[in-house]
């Protein structure tokens, strides 16, 4: 077997697969969102937006993303920087920092449930320190703020690793000479970080931010484990409409909204953090 056909033959299975299970369902979800009983309609979106939970879910999700992602970016940069400066134990530190990458969002939610639950470890600690007389109900339906904080912490804990790994890989691509030259000219570590690392890291920062923002709008199982239905988010509402309310078309409208937000934000960050071709390493 030789000639021009081989690469196409090799690509064929993957391409066909992505057409059937990625492009086609994408078209299907758009179709379902805009139809009801066979006719074109915007009713699904009206039903979606008219539900009292919709604005709450929308703002909860957006607020979560807006708070979590910047904190994660800073934490991931810190992790990547300390790892790159470490001389011994680099591998061990990298493995430990990367662990949450392999942990399911549901498991992460359960992990933080062990801490925030009424009989959990945080209450034990507070009572051992004499700060509370009896266990506080952190995750009850009246304590939306603490549920929100618990979700924020769980999300930071869970998904910083993915950004860290991308940034470590990106830092590895920056030639050492740049740092050495800057050091010779007396640039402080902070200055080197701001003037060399950050600008040259832009492609990785872009990837990390895009990936993470998309994941942030998919937040679901962490919230389900910690807040149940007390903290509505977009993915959770999608799930509800599909299952509890048995309305596929409205669920599709939710799905399309999340897809639109993801694509919109991807395009935004592709532009905002654009790296000119000649500036790439």
């Amino acid at each position: 077997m030789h000639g021009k056909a081989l690469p196409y033959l090799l690509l064929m299975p993957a391409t066909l697969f992505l057409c059937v299970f990625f492009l086609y369902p994408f078209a299907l979800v758009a179709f379902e969102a805009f139809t009801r009983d066979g006719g074109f309609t915007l009713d699904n979106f009206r039903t979606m937006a008219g539900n009292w939970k919709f604005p709450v879910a929308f703002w909860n999700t957006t607020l979560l993303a807006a708070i979590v992602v910047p904190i994660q970016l800073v934490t991931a940069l810190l992790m990547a920087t300390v790892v790159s400066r470490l001389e011994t134990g680099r591998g061990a530190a990298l493995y430990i920092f990367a662990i949450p990458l392999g942990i399911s969002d549901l498991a992460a939610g359960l992990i933080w449930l062990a801490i925030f639950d009424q009989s959990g470890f945080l209450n034990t600690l507070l009572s051992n320190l004499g700060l509370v007389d009896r266990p506080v109900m952190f995750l009850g339906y009246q304590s939306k703020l603490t549920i929100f904080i618990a979700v924020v912490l769980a999300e930071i804990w869970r998904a910083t690793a993915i950004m860290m790994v991308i940034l470590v890989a990106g830092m590895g691509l920056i030639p050492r000479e740049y740092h050495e030259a800057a050091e010779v000219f007396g640039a402080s570590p902070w200055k080197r970080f701001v003037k060399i690392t950050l600008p040259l890291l832009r492609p990785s920062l872009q990837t990390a931010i895009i990936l993470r923002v998309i994941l942030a709008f998919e937040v679901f199982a962490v919230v389900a484990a910690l807040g149940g239905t007390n903290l509505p988010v977009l993915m959770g509402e999608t799930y509800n409409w599909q299952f509890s309310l048995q309305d596929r078309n409205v669920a599709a409208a939710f799905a399309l909204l999340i897809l639109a937000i993801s694509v919109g934000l991807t395009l935004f960050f592709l532009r905002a953090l654009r790296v000119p071709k000649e500036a790439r390493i």
Partner: protein
Amino acid sequence: MSAVAEAPVVATADARKAGSWLLVATVILLSVWVLLPIYLLIVNALSSPEEVTAFPKRFFPSFDFGSLSFFINFAGVGRALWNSVLVATLTMILSIGFGAPAGYALSRFDFPGKGTFRFLVLMTRAFPLPLLALPLAVMFIRTGLDDTAIGLALVHTTLALPFAVLITFSLFSGIPVELEEAAWTLGCTRLQAFRKVILPLALPGIAASAIFAFTISWNEVFAAAVLTIENRTLTAFLLQSLGESPLYLKFAGGAALVIPALIFIFAVRKYLFAMWGIANR
């Protein structure tokens, strides 16, 4: 005179020492941040049901297997575990089977349409893929794939395939084409050269990306919960029983999700960075 000359040297040495202490302290702090929550979950999983719901809690496990045996014997758990393994194995086979040939083609050939394929693969990352389970649910009912392991594995493969393509692409790119050419001149056919020369070199990396595919499927919650009813995976089972299940069941289930993940990530740690480094472009 000499004292004046020495002072700055001493000062920088001090600063360096302080810097390295700060570095070590930061690494330890970040490691504790990652590991402590997991430890607390394990403490819960290794305590008796009474201890899990008691207050205040102990910060050390009593190594009572009551919670774990309750979990294992709980109706549906054994089957859910089996389903999780089955779906993840199928996902692994599908994503490597489709992804590795594509990765090889991308690394060895230049052909029209290469850019389009890469764009298709990268585009999958701008979409919240689990959402595509919603329209697929209908398609699966029509084709008889609903509530089957293979149906869910197909959806999980859309999540894992892009990674399989990118990691095998980077793997094959790292193996010099000259090795293959030498085998051809010695009389190997293209297939023989691949099997005898390239495959042995690429196998560890392919295994790593297979494990990564397994982990992605093992951890996935949303699509699993949408697409399975009778044949629920462990994540779907835990999610759907969140409302009614007792705490000790949740924590034992969480631990059952986490422990394999820790091992998976340990097994692929060397390749994590290659995977994401290449994902940058």
